[in-house]
């Protein structure tokens, strides 16, 4: 069945408003690299509630979502923290106060759940040594559906498996994307393919929307095919303060500022107010940044262009018929061919009514 062709290009506000209902599950589909902060901020701005968050590896986005009250349930393998005990953040506070439930998986286990889901598999094996750990033994959100053990029918050995997961909506930031949603991403791929494709809906934010010709002459860079994508949001600096290879580096200073704000609940709220609620969108966020810190810190982050070494996609010809309308293989021109068909071919004739 064909989809009706409507434009997928929209604002972050429209994309989040349209595809992320309260109570749904989301997958943050960048793996540390290029975190989709423009989309995350929009979730917060729209005061989304009760999101079940699949976060393979997070940095500050989880603290932000918890602090803003968007989520009470997180499935994760890793969450980057800057400090030691002196630098507890929203994640620690929420857990300690019982306003957050976390399902702990290993990197490979959470990935395997998304991988199986992306492939339409009910379950998939993981590496069985995980059985020795509390990751296997203790379960929270997933309850009895975290790990199971099956017998390998060939060797008879125990095999640990996980269940395929299909979160409702993926959020991902990429370097470039065309209007049809062909999303191109490079650098550290991490879990991005599986954490996107596993989902029912996919929202892509992109440094730039490019012409389809760019995509079709670099198809090996496409992470998500256009037909899987529901919304395309153009957001330059959409991953700031994270990095995007070929666009900009990590903003260490800004991240350090966030981590300091994260130390108390009050300063976290002031961060949210200043950098999320009080900015109508990413353009305002960037304008505010420049107003606050000047343009220099951002300029210093800009990547110097370094194009990749291309693949040759060339072919010997672009038609059966050459420029003169002649076919080498058949040894004749296009009109000679029609004549040959009439003389030697099995041509049928039928009378039709002209419209």
């Amino acid at each position: 069945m064909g989809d009706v062709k409507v434009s997928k290009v929209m604002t972050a506000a429209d994309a989040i408003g349209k595809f992320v209902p309260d109570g749904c599950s989301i997958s943050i589909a960048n793996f540390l690299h290029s975190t989709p902060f423009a989309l995350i901020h929009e979730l917060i701005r729209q005061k989304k509630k009760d999101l079940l968050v699949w976060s393979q590896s997070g940095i500050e986005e989880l603290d932000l979502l918890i602090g803003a009250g968007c989520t009470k349930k997180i499935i994760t393998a890793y969450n980057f923290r800057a400090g030691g005990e002196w630098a507890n953040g929203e994640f620690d506070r929420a857990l300690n106060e019982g306003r957050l439930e976390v399902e702990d998986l290993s990197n490979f286990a959470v990935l395997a759940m998304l991988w199986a889901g992306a492939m339409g598999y009910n379950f998939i094996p993981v590496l069985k040594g995980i059985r020795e750990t509390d990751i296997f033994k203790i379960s929270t959100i997933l309850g009895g559906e975290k790990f199971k053990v099956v017998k390998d029918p060939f060797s008879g050995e125990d095999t640990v498996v996980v269940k395929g997961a299909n979160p409702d909506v993926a959020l991902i930031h990429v370097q470039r994307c065309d209007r049809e949603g062909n999303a191109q991403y490079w650098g550290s791929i991490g879990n991005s393919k599986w954490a996107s494709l596993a989902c029912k809906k996919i929202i892509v934010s992109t440094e730039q929307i490019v012409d389809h010709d760019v995509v079709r002459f670099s198809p090996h860079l496409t992470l998500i095919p256009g037909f899987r994508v529901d919304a395309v949001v153009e957001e330059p600096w959409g991953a700031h303060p994270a990095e995007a290879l070929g666009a900009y580096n990590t903003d260490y200073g800004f991240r350090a500022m966030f981590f300091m704000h994260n130390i108390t609940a009050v300063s976290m709220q002031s961060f949210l107010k200043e950098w999320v609620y009080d900015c109508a969108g990413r353009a305002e966020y960037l304008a505010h940044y420049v107003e606050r810190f000047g343009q220099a810190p951002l300029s210093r982050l800009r990547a110097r262009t370094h194009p990749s070494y291309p693949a040759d996609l060339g072919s010997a010809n672009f038609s059966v018929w050459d420029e003169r309308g002649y076919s080498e293989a058949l040894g004749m021109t296009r009109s000679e061919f029609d004549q040959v068909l009439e003389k030697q071919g099995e041509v049928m004739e039928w009378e039709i009514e002209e419209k």
Partner: protein
Amino acid sequence: MGNRRKIRFTLSELMIYNAALEIQDGDKVVMGQGIPIVACSLAKTFHAPNAVLMTEAGLVDVAPFRSPLHIADPTCTRGYSYSCDLMDIFTTILNRGFVDLCFLGVGQIDKFGNMNSTAIGDYRHPKMRMMGAGGAPDFALYAKRVVLTMRGGKFVNKLDYFTTPGWLAGGDSRKRAGLPETGPEVLISTKAVFHFPAPERELTLVSLHPGVNAEDVRKDVPWKLKIADNLNTTPVPPQEAIDFVRVFDPTLTAGRKLSLSLTIQAAAKKQAAKQKPAEAGKAEL
């Protein structure tokens, strides 16, 4: 009533056009080589510009400019949107339910659209070996719609080898096997078009190609063939479709026999014209 006009076309052109009519705009289609790839390209050029054409080799959203020798030939395209692989096609695309339509060729076929594309005769010592299963079983099982094209194939009461599931034993037997109820819907042969209507899911003649009568079709079918109440004439290709096909794949248009003879003639002509090419050639290698 308008004027009447004569259209002249080959059998391939008729089959290709009718295969193309099965494609709706926006469909995500897995193409096989031969008729399907031409039909898909025709549809995308005219009535289904947003169709997403793909081959199991991992070429997704491709618009070929000519027919390839095989489904993994990337030199027949001017780019494509997504370069994935066989695994991605079968799992993240097919198994997730994103294939709207799939075309398959037919070797042997039975009353319920089950097919053999592996071997004719005794499986272990066959009279003829065919191409094998390829992706057919999985596509036939999990694509939302399946359309069959049949040039050299045969209708049989019992397959020599069961390669690809159609409607199994007919009726609701797919459902009972825990499989999607999405078997073959249309078969386009050299003589006619057939459907597999619910609830029986038995091969049923629905239209005859120009100049063919029901008896011509019946004699190829070793069981009592079902015939639709309102038997139609298969739509003939408009001139623009014929022109498209002759540019895109003249070899297919001409048919195997004529093509081979034309190719041999062309080669002979070239050989005759050739003058001491060996020395010139070495330098350029």
